[in-house]
């Protein structure tokens, strides 16, 4: 993975010193809250419902075991012994003291991490496929390009005060696991260069991104992105926060006209001054080699015997492993979603175990997926049972990847000042309702995504079943959306039926799922396939209790 050079170290050191001084001035009263708020937000520090929340950037979701162990230490020392992995592939600590933040940022800098650009109207952490560099279906590794974008965008003076925040996602595989069509810019890395999708996003007015250019060569990527950002920075709506995202501009201009303006801008730019030279791209690429894969003797018969003797292990292998480019390896999903617990939460003890197993079985590398799970990208098949047993001791062996209980949920009204309704308790109740692992397996792939407000941090627009919490005269209500998906066939879900009170939602979901089981033509036909074949209205009646 990328290793900081002297410039990265100096930048983070100087920024931490600056913020440390700002915190001291706020505590002394020299800075007012109005003066301090934008400064703390630029360093990832929010004041939430109960306490300060520190959001730490995990560049494109890639973590070392050393960094994970540092998170465990911070959770134990400065927080309430746990952290929360987010849909932006970042980590949030929910109980931080203001005076501790300079020390925490110093500790993060020791392991080449920071909290810059995790808030504010700037280019945020670039996200990517959690199986980058490992997946069997990968065309090219997106991580070097994500790192190039990180270096280009970090405190980019022209793009520090955009009309609104700006999110870029990259995938380099045939399957889109990075949800590129619902990002401000989505990049699909192909053998013929980048396909550039612009104007996607969720929130109040969801849009799918439009393909505005294909075949952008890697060595021209930065100047093309700069042209995209420049047109947005110039014409994006600054007068109305609800119309300030690039999706609104692209929609207003039309994708063709936006693309024309970008092309015109691109041709006026001094591209050579912006684009990274070949040797720099090669230098960055050199940080992402394959690990020194161990040639461990793999005994298929021994694995089969272990699975036969331990059905829970067999289920975990079936559900939580992903095809690797090497036949003797797999990628492993560590589910942070045991039945009844908050999605994305991990205790310090669990973080330590994840770091330990990464060292023992995964070449020291971990990933944070946008579905809030943790990935070990490279695991020898010979090590699977030993790995499973260690994870099982700390409740990290739930075999539900991509299943109905693998729910994305934003923090919701339990933590977030913006939320209208709680998300996590609902996800807990739904996962308890589908606690039967056999039933979960029978249902197959089904993605539920819950947001506690219209800002859609829980990606409800692209859930096979999306759930949106709303406030109805002081009562939490939930609207159900059906038919969304974030993959290469991206689609936005549509609100179906009337809003439901929280206590009615799990039963409504179960009725929909039972109907799906009746209607599917075979177990291979997934819930989303049936919704697309028969239409979401087929399920509308099932959402409501029979009269």
């Amino acid at each position: 993975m990328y290793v900081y050079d002297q410039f990265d170290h100096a930048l983070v050191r100087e920024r931490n010193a600056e913020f440390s001084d700002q915190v001291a001035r706020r505590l002394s009263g020299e800075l007012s809250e109005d003066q301090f708020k934008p400064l703390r937000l630029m360093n990832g520090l929010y004041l939430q419902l109960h306490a300060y929340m520190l959001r730490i950037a995990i560049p494109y979701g890639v973590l070392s075991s050393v960094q994970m162990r540092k998170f465990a230490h911070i959770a134990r020392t400065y927080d309430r012994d746990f952290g929360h992995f987010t849909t932006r592939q970042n980590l949030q600590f929910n109980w931080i003291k203001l005076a501790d933040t300079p020390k925490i940022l110093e500790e993060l800098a020791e392991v080449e991490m920071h909290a810059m650009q995790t808030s504010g109207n700037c280019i945020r952490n670039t996200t990517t496929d959690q199986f980058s560099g490992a997946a069997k279906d990968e065309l090219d590794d997106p991580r070097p390009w994500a790192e190039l974008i990180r270096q280009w965008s970090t405190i980019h003076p022209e793009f520090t005060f955009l009309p609104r925040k700006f999110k870029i996602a990259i995938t380099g595989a045939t399957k889109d696991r990075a949800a590129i069509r619902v990002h401000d810019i989505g990049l699909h890395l192909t053998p013929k260069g980048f396909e550039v999708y612009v104007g996607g996003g969720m929130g109040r007015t969801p849009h799918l991104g439009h393909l505005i250019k294909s075949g952008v060569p890697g060595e021209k990527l930065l100047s093309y992105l700069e042209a995209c950002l420049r047109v947005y920075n110039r014409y994006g709506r600054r007068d109305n926060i609800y119309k300030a995202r690039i999706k609104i501009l692209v929609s207003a201009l039309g994708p063709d006209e936006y693309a024309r303006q970008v092309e015109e801008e691109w041709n006026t730019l001094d591209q050579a001054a912006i684009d990274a030279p070949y040797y720099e791209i090669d230098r960055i690429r050199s940080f992402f080699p394959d690990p020194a894969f161990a040639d461990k003797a793999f005994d298929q018969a021994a694995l089969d015997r272990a699975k036969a003797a331990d059905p829970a292990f067999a289920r975990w292998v079936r559900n939580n492993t992903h095809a690797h480019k090497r036949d003797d390896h797999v990628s492993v999903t560590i589910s942070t979603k045991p039945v009844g617990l908050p999605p994305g939460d991990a205790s310090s003890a669990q973080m330590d175990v994840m770091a330990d197993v990464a060292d023992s079985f995964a070449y020291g590398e971990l990933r944070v997926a946008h579905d809030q799970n943790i990935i070990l990208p490279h695991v020898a098949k010979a090590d699977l049972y030993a790995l499973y047993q260690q994870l099982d001791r700390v409740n990290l062996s739930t075999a539900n990847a991509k299943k109905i209980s693998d729910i994305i949920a934003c923090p919701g009204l339990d933590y977030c000042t913006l939320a209208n309704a709680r998300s996590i308790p609902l996800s807990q109740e739904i996962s308890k309702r589908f606690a039967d692992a056999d039933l979960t397996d029978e249902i197959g792939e089904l993605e539920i995504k819950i947001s506690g407000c219209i800002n859609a941090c829980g990606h409800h627009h692209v859930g096979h079943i999306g759930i949106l919490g709303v406030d109805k005269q002081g009562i939490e209500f939930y609207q159900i959306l059906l038919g969304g998906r974030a993959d290469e066939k991206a689609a936005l879900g549509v609100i179906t039926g009337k809003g439901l009170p929280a206590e009615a939602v799990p039963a409504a979901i179960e009725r929909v799922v039972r109907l799906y089981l009746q209607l599917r033509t075979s177990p291979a036909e997934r819930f989303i396939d049936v919704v697309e074949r028969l239409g979401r209205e087929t399920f509308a009646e099932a959402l409501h209790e029979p009269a």
Partner: protein
Amino acid sequence: MKLLTANRLTDGLVLWYADGQWVEDAAIATHLEDAAGEALKAEWVARETEVVAPYLIPVTDDGTPVQRELVREFVRANGPTIGQTTFDTAKQFNRDEVFQ
């Protein structure tokens, strides 16, 4: 009647105004007449080295926040309603949750 609440500057924890001081336990918050509440809020808005963003919550006759505020203030007063942090504020004061 109203309750005055804010977050503490140093750690962001939820505070309630009670008999001349700020406390973490919502169960003992003072019920303020509207005018007195407004005057206290104005006083504390200026004292930024102690609390952040003080505001008033309208309460009903039985002392609970009015309906439109109830869920949010229930969670603020008692702590998150989930997992390892369930009602941690209520637990800290060894009491049942307030604003049920």
